[in-house]
């Protein structure tokens, strides 16, 4: 056999190998980034939540319209004073290692979230002061103060239950071999390569699991991710960029669905955080900047109208959006007048932003809009962590960030604008606002909460500690063969129920 024949045979076998011959149903999902530790207590990255959704069931889940529904807990009941909540647990649930899920496991998990060094869950459920095991399938969470948004926190990582036995065995390295109670169990992880999950035979709701295996593949480049979807290597991709939508829509083998996100894109203004707050300390100056921006034109120009112009801490599709205060039209003369009144007719400030396409392009459009009102905005690119660090230190006049959003409105407002909010880098502090958002944490009646948030929104729009600009639509691209997909505003793909 000649060398050329050998090479031809080798190439042919390689080409044949490109088509997988397995009879297993495997769903491959392209992620925008590689998740951090697969441990619900210390996990931080958004992208990890997509993996968790297949791996770790939670006490509760949210529906596409953000209603809290049972998952590992079957019901809840608030005490009359809203200082404790009793949860009834689903019977017959097993963790992936065969250990039973029960009230002791819930107590272990909550304690772990509250006490583990570096836990990012503590701030979400820190008001839980103790967990009582009422019986094998009932627990009571006792709170230091009423906190209605607690249940929403239990629909995310704080509500994920891991096997106590595995957690004790693996300690800090639990994330390298996670053991939960979700529809799929962990098989392997190749960092930056793939995360492989296998169907869990003893899952409590196995009738709704139609896939044998799920693989998550991080591909950071959006063009390459889309190419993998088009070639059939991937069957789903998350957070599709608006610029890629046309290609997906034009391809009959693919489809795309989108829902408004829970979060927002925001420019934080330095109101009172250190010496750099001097430039934008005057509320009239901040109002002028706000008035000089045409959000509708911005979204149209940069995002082909695929996103939603916004001005509040929730998107216009949320029940908590204050409809009396919609996105205002641009008003350049009024902006100029406000600047003159504030004695800063030639306002100049610097906007820090990360080198990321969406925000860079939007910032350039905003820069041009502000220039028409006599405002000079200088753009300064900084790598993301550096920018966030500068935000904490108060070493900024304005910076461009985003918030991924939470199902409960509290998660979108308290931490950002309450005097002691962890994200409040602007150091905005308004006692009336604080009273409203604190009260909203303590009342369970949605109508009453809505009134409180409406009033809080009024104050935010008057004081302008930040510029809420737009809300993305979370687009998921999928192969047309994938059935049973319902998009959720949190952007998380629920693998349960999907089939080919």
């Amino acid at each position: 056999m000649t060398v050329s024949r050998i090479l031809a045979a080798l190439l042919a076998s390689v080409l044949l190998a490109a088509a997988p011959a397995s009879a297993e149903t495997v769903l491959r999902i392209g992620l925008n980034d590689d998740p951090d530790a697969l441990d619900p207590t210390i996990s931080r990255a958004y992208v990890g939540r997509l993996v968790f959704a297949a791996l770790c069931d939670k006490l509760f889940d949210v529906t596409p319209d953000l209603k809290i529904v049972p998952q590992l807990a079957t019901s809840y009941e608030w005490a009359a004073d809203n200082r404790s909540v009793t949860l009834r647990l689903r019977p017959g649930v097993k963790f992936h290692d065969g250990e039973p899920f029960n009230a002791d496991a819930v107590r272990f998990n909550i304690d772990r979230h509250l006490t583990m060094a570096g836990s990012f869950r503590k701030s979400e459920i820190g008001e839980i002061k103790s967990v009582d095991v009422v019986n094998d399938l009932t627990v009571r969470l006792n709170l230091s103060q009423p906190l209605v948004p607690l249940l929403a926190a239990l629909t995310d990582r704080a509500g994920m239950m891991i096997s106590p036995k595995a957690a004790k065995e693996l300690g800090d390295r639990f994330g390298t071999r996670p053991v939960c109670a979700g529809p799929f169990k962990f098989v392997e992880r190749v960092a930056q390569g793939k995360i492989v999950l296998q169907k869990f035979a003893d899952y409590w709701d196995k009738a709704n699991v139609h896939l044998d295996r799920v693989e998550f593949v991080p591909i950071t480049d959006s063009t390459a991710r889309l190419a993998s979807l088009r070639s059939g290597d991937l069957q789903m991709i998350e957070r599709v960029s608006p610029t890629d939508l046309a290609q997906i829509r034009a391809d009959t083998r693919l489809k795309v669905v989108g829902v408004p996100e829970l979060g927002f894109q925001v420019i934080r203004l330095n109101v009172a955080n250190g010496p750099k707050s001097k430039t934008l300390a005057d509320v009239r100056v901040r109002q002028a900047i706000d008035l000089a921006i045409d959000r509708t034109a911005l979204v149209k120009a940069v995002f082909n109208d695929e996103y939603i112009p916004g001005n509040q801490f929730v998107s216009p599709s949320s029940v908590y959006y204050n409809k009396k205060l919609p996105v205002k039209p641009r008003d350049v003369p009024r902006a100029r007048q406000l600047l003159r009144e504030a004695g800063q007719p030639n306002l100049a400030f610097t906007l820090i932003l990360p080198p990321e396409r969406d925000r860079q392009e939007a910032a350039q459009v905003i820069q041009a809009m502000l220039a028409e009102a006599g405002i000079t905005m200088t753009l300064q690119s900084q790598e993301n962590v550096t920018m966030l660090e500068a935000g904490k230190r108060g070493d900024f006049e304005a910076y461009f960030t985003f918030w991924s959003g939470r199902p409960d409105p509290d998660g979108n407002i308290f931490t950002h604008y309450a005097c002691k909010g962890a994200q409040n880098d602007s150091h905005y502090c308004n006692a009336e606002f604080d009273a409203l958002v604190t009260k909203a944490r303590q009342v369970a009646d949605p109508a009453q909460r809505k009134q409180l948030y409406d009033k809080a929104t009024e104050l935010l729009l008057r004081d302008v500690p930040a510029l809420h600009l737009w809300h993305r639509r979370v687009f998921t691209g999928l192969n047309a063969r994938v059935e049973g997909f319902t998009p959720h505003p949190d952007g998380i793909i629920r693998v349960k129920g999907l089939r080919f």
Partner: protein
Amino acid sequence: MLIFSLQKLLPGDAATALAGEEGDTAAVAAIRVKYNLDRPVAVQYGIWIGKVLRGDFGDSLRSRIPVADLIASKLPVTVELAIVSMLIALAVGVPAGVLSATRQGRPLDLAANFVALSGLSVPHFWLGIMLILLFAVRLGWLPASGYVPPWDDWRRNLSTILLPSIVLGTGVAGVMMRHARSAMLQTLGADYVRTARAKSVPERLVVMKHALRNALIPVITLGAVEFGRLLSGAVLTEQIFAIPGFGKLLVDGVFNRDYAVVQAVVLVSALCYLLLNLLADILYFVADPRLRGSS
């Protein structure tokens, strides 16, 4: 030590990078204490080097996976990618250089030069996307992304490694061709080549035996340097083809301030460079027997 200090000059630390948009100050403080990030840089370095000397590279702060495991899983991927890319570069670059030198100024020489310059100039990113669109999306012959280890399925392994290797190999082949050509031109003009021709030695033997062997020294040197560069990772190519290699590990490590990962990758890359230089020295002896005598 230099890399360790430079990393510390970057604003923010692993704890802030981990916290991201949440900025949970209590959790950030707890992480700093747990991983000694609150201690002076010299102490942090002492702790790290002490562990490394005991064979412990620590855990990745982001994924909590032991760094030794990360290196062990990525080194074979990067080595394989580098070898296949290098083979492609050698198979294309050296013959093209030889052909080009022996036909200096003729159409084949110009064509080879044009191809070499194109290989050097075309951005890896663009070439990668084009290859994916052609071979994966349009023709469906090869997978667009991912990596399968050879011990799982060698055929799928080759199918996943082929396109990224072509992308990396193209760039190296261009440099190889240029070096091989100039070295060949030099040796072809040497006295001993003229003597060989005068003695009616067949042209094929003159080129392949007398000239090429002597022209190989700079090509070997270049090969070692390029191979070392490939081993320290090819970030863009790895990103486009979702290949879990060294380059992406390093870049993500820097962005996440994952010091343990960055230090370990730099250390292992430096060791690889040293080994390659040693290998290049050995190859000089193989290629040029005169060096054996002189030593």
